């Protein structure tokens, strides 16, 4: 097992064991916590009241409840819509388009746009939520700058189209990541390959479709993997902007877990939702990792 290790490591087993302690401790802690959640998901443990101390195992009751009560399926749907439109479509395409468009622009334009995009990224979620709240609220920026001049009736977007607002906010906040990743990825496409396609007669669109995108496929899969997972479990911006409402209209899974666990106090149920989220994210990851691999 340690055959290809360095000779001095092979000689000193005690040192190797000592060096491994931190890693083992971290892994053990992670496994303990994950195991704790898994065990709790089979109990009726509550945050307060009688069940906080006198809890008992309830089998698959919590998991049955996922599908029998309205909350989970609604949140799963909201999360899916949120993730597909804000991450996979919004951030991904906007990030790629910006990276492609800014490749051959002057340094000033590029720096300016990059600065603006990254500013959104590094702004704390709560501040961003305030900015978007001011933008989309009744008589906010959109109403005053776009709707009123055209004589359209003003409205409170956060009430009327809450999911749309959080999607736009998340696209704005997360596009920088995709932009940075795709900027770097586009540099890896050899210019001579693109030129060869040009000599072969491919139009710019054909070059993008037949040459650049297939070469970038692993980068696209990596990016999708990352932004899908991060959007799927995203919490602060949405919570600060809408609190999951109005009603359950923007109640994504992370907010649903939070409310069931800490507002309602059903820790067992909250654990079951978390386990379900982990399974969904794991399934998505496997899908993307397969996409990463070469077909041949």
């Amino acid at each position, binding site marked *: 097992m340690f055959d290809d290790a360095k000779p001095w490591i092979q000689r000193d087993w005690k040192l190797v064991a000592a060096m491994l302690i931190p890693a083992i401790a971290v892994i053990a802690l992670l496994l303990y916590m994950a195991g704790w959640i898994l065990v709790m998901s089979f109990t009726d443990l509550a945050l307060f009241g009688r069940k906080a101390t006198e809890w008992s195992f309830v089998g698959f009751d919590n998991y049955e409840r996922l599908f029998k009560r309205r909350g989970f399926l609604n949140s799963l749907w909201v999360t899916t819509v949120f993730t597909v439109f804000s991450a996979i479509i919004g951030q991904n395409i906007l990030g790629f388009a910006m990276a492609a468009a800014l490749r051959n622009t002057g340094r000033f334009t590029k720096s300016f746009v990059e600065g603006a995009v990254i500013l959104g990224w590094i702004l704390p979620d709560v501040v961003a939520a305030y900015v978007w709240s001011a933008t989309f609220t009744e008589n906010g920026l959109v109403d005053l700058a776009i709707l009123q001049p055209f004589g359209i009736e003003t409205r409170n977007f956060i009430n009327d189209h809450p999911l749309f607002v959080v999607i736009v906010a998340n696209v704005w906040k997360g596009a920088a990541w995709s932009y940075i990743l795709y900027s770097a990825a586009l540099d890896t496409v*050899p210019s*001579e*390959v693109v*030129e*060869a*396609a*040009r*000599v*072969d*007669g*491919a139009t710019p669109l*054909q070059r993008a479709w*037949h*040459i650049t995108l*297939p*070469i970038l*496929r692993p980068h696209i899969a990596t990016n999708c993997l990352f932004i899908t997972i991060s959007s799927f479990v995203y919490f602060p911006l949405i919570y600060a902007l809408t609190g999951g409402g109005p009603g359950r209209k923007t109640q994504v899974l992370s907010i649903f877990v939070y409310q069931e666990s800490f507002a309602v106090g059903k820790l067992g149920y909250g654990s079951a939702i978390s386990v379900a989220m982990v399974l969904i994210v794991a399934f998505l990851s496997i899908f993307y990792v397969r996409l990463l691999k070469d077909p*041949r």
Partner: protein
Amino acid sequence: MTGVVLNDVRKSYGDLQVIHGIDLSIDPGDFIVFVGPSGCGKSTLLRMIAGLERISDGTVSISGRVVNDVPAPDRGISMVFQSYALYPHMTVGDNMAFGLRIRRTPAERIRETVGQAAEALQLGQYIDRLPKALSGGQRQRVAIGRAIVREPEVFLFDEPLSNLDAALRNQTRMEIARLHREIGATMIYVTHDQIEALTLATKIAVLKDGELQQFDTPDRVYNQPANTFVAGFMGAPPMNLVAAEIIAGDGGAAVAVLERAGQPPVHVGLPASRKRLVGRRVVFGLRPEAICSGPVGSRPDHAEIDVDIDYVEVTGADRIAVTNFTSGPFYARLPADADVHEGRRARLNFDRDKINVFDADTGARIAEETP
């Protein structure tokens, strides 16, 4: 078949001009090599012919048609790139077929054309492999195959062999030469390797700093370089260049006074065809292989010099003697059994008719006088 004509072609990036008005007329079926040191503009010139680089001024014509504003795919050219530029996600067959598919060639015809090219290039068994599963030489053949299937009128090669190892380079060079013989298309080939230039070309264009130095057959470029730059660039070791002053000798014959580093000058009587040089300052150019070891003996056309041998390089067939004849290195390519040794004095001689003469100020070649 198609010729290519460059008429006062220029290229500028902003205020910086990199190609300074090049005129070239390439006959149909010629194999032209652009050669020159790094940064001389040879690749830029090729890319301008290809349509990958805009032409700032002047015209490029292919088959008598000015193509300045014609997009690359419509110029009737194919290009082989230095990095091969294969599409990494496509198989060998798809790489070759891509251009044809883009042009909506019927599938049956694509299969046939690609199959033929693959057979001709011994790629038949690799047709379903990805480029990364191929060796460098095979990749280069795929790139050539991709160029062939489009049946271009002009082939453009941008340093196609520089990523190959020495043995493979020789082999691929011969394959390209064979390809030219078989297809007979016009080919333009960029390289900084003068051996490739001399062996492949029907005509060589030597470039320096964006200017054409000489455009002629390999033989004339090598033996009668147009100026001191070409003389020094072509050949390894390069042509020896020695400053000389020409004075009048007995009976008005021209005698060259060759300046030497730290030693008295050497007098060399010149042939009658060099009479008009008297009074001029010139540079002598002498190929290392024009120099023989030993005294002149019974060869009246030869002149002899005595030198100290600094260094002897044995290359197998030859001994390259580096001497102190001038301030810089002065090379003599001698037979392997020549009696020259490091640190010893040796007598060398050379054929006076093989001296190239250049103007000391402009570096331009001074032709022999015709009687």
